[in-house]
């Protein structure tokens, strides 16, 4: 298995008696690092790239909404209400107060995506930490943390979000807080399972046998193996978060009118569903597309990040 240079090997004799130089061993390929492999797989997974592109499009359009929106989302016009697509420059029509649908959808994307991503990021950091602590610390700490999470698990997530948000009084900030609290238990559970599995493996014992302290073991060995499943699960939670946030706004517990928000728009346009069905369906379509694309993106990420394939 030692790689000898060609000069060291003895000259070979071929069948017809000629003495030739031995064939040169091929140059050793530089092995790819883990993230290079992930990047390579993602670049060649065209389906995931598609969904990732759609997600990127939605996110960018939300970020650059002030530049992209053709009109002011708050500008009402009582004459041109519930107009169909393409009426006098309104590409997607107008809503029940005469505001441009396209602008409202773009600005609404900002609110909905914020309420989708921020709670998940908050819950990942808190729930992930709690889960890793519970998984690594062992019996008593584990029991305390996981049984507390089980209490929250007993409630269906939407009901819990509605209850917390309603108690706190509604509004965007309270809605994000409620959603974070709803997502902490499942993330904690995923982190704890992953950490427990990793902790029992021999390489952690070998690290302890090398004299490594707690911080070193957690940083070098536990985190890199346990955070993978956590992030993949969190990315699938973004779609759920967008849905529940829309639900909260639909129920009147999220942002207040006239702030544009997809869930709120669904609520107000619900009343005109028989008059202008395509208009009423638009916010719902966008919620649907965003959720599905985040979900499928997280699936693709999971496949790309699997070390063993």
């Amino acid at each position, binding site marked *: *298995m*030692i*790689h000898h240079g060609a000069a060291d090997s003895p000259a070979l004799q071929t069948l017809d008696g000629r003495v030739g130089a031995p064939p040169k061993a091929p140059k*050793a390929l*530089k*092995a790819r*690092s*883990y993230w290079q492999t992930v990047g390579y797989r993602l670049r060649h997974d065209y389906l995931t790239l598609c969904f990732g592109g759609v997600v990127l499009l939605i996110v960018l359009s939300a970020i650059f909404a002030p530049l992209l929106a053709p009109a002011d989302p708050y500008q009402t016009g009582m004459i041109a209400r519930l107009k169909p697509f393409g009426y006098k420059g309104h590409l997607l029509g107008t809503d029940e107060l005469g505001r441009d649908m396209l602008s409202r959808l773009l600005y609404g994307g900002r609110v909905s995506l914020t309420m989708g991503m921020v709670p998940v990021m908050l819950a990942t950091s808190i729930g992930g930490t709690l889960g890793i602590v519970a998984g690594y610390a062992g019996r008593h700490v584990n029991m305390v943390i996981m049984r507390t999470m089980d209490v929250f698990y007993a409630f269906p997530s939407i009901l819990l979000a509605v209850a917390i948000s309603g108690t706190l009084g509604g509004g965007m900030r309270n809605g994000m807080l409620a959603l974070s609290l709803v997502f902490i238990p499942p993330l904690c559970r995923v982190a704890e399972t992953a950490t427990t599995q990793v902790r029992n*493996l*021999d*390489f952690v*014992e*070998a*690290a*302890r*046998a*090398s*004299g*490594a*302290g707690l911080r*070193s073991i957690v940083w*070098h*060995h536990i985190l*890199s*193996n346990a955070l993978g499943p956590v992030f993949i699960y969190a990315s699938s939670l973004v779609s759920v978060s967008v849905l529940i946030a829309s639900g909260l706004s639909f129920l009147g517990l999220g942002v207040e009118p006239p702030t544009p928000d997809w869930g709120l728009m669904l609520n107000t346009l619900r009343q005109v569903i028989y008059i202008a069905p395509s208009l009423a369906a638009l916010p719902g379509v966008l919620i649907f597309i965003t959720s599905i694309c985040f979900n499928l993106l997280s699936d693709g990420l999971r496949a790309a990040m699997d*070390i*063993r394939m």
Partner: protein
Amino acid sequence: MSASTQPHMFPRLSSPTRDRGGPAQPLLIVSNLRKYFPVRGGILNRTVGHIQAVDGMSFSVMKGETLGIVGESGCGKSTLARLLLYLLQPDEGELVFDGEAVHTWQGMSLQELRRNVQIVFQDSDSSLNPRMPAEDSIAYGPRVHGTKPAAAKALARDLLRAVGLDPELFGPRYPHELSGGQKQRVNIARALALEPRLVILDEAVSALDKSIEAQVLNLLMELKQQLDLTYLFISHDLNVVQFISDRVLVMYLGHIVEIGPVEAIYQAPKHPYTRALLASRLSMDPQVRMTEPPLVGDPPNPIAPPSGCRFRTRCPHAQDVCARVTPRLPPPMHGALHTVACHIYDAASGHPEAVAAVSPHRPVEISTPVRQNTVTQREQRRVCRSRSSRCATCASALSRVSPLCML
């Protein structure tokens, strides 16, 4: 194997002053090591019993030797390995490493112990972090102890070369890109990275193919010579232990039953369990058949082991005294002496067959039912293929082929 022809690249141990006790001082003295695992049950998870994994083991390891530890599955070998590194807290017992008591206020700290003792595990796959390349896994130990990253990486590359892997080719590879034998070599390199003096090999070759096993064993023997190592070789494979060990320790259900030089144990085993274990090995000659196994059944439950001698439930020589009194290894426990923990070899025990023993160190000719299972002498002469007057296998005259030849 190219590893034996290439010049050794690994830097030798830095100073001879690491040897503090001198050649006569045992490298490791284990006294009365005990570890019971609690069994929890019931609603409130109360402790309902204890798994007596390791119970009062005392032995020593001399410098530069390979001590083989054999025993059935579940006898406590792996628990012992972890106890010696303090990966598990022993309930009772002391370790003395080269004259210094371990984990005591004035003796050696655990950090120092872990610089001197290292372990190679059985499962080469789960022993390596799947997210770290091989050279990073090897360099981790030195880095934990303060070595700079560049120096640690250079050390890792030297070690890879020493175990027979090209560092250019295998250094950046992840564990899933390595075969079983290569992973075990990386594990050995990782164990050697901290320059230990004692390496515990916990069934390190058991999971490998026979050809790879042979290569890894040869590698281990070369490394032992080059680096002045002492090995504790735990295995259930009797042939491998015979090949590599200088002394052998036989364990049964957490107790030591016999300890002695490898030739003495394999050619003149004393304890009934050792005899039965060695008789269980199958012969390479297909004409020699064993009709009944010498050792039947499973070991008793470690939660409620038999009173007195733990082997008495499967021992053909069990008497009343064996149930009342637990036989202990007679002191001294280090050195090349062949000692056995059995009442038969203790003149004062009261065992009916014990009176024949004059000295506890001389093997007694006791009749073992084990011999009845082997082929009779007349059949042996018919069976032995070599027609010369001396049998090649055991170098004794054909007419006096000892039953052990058939092992």
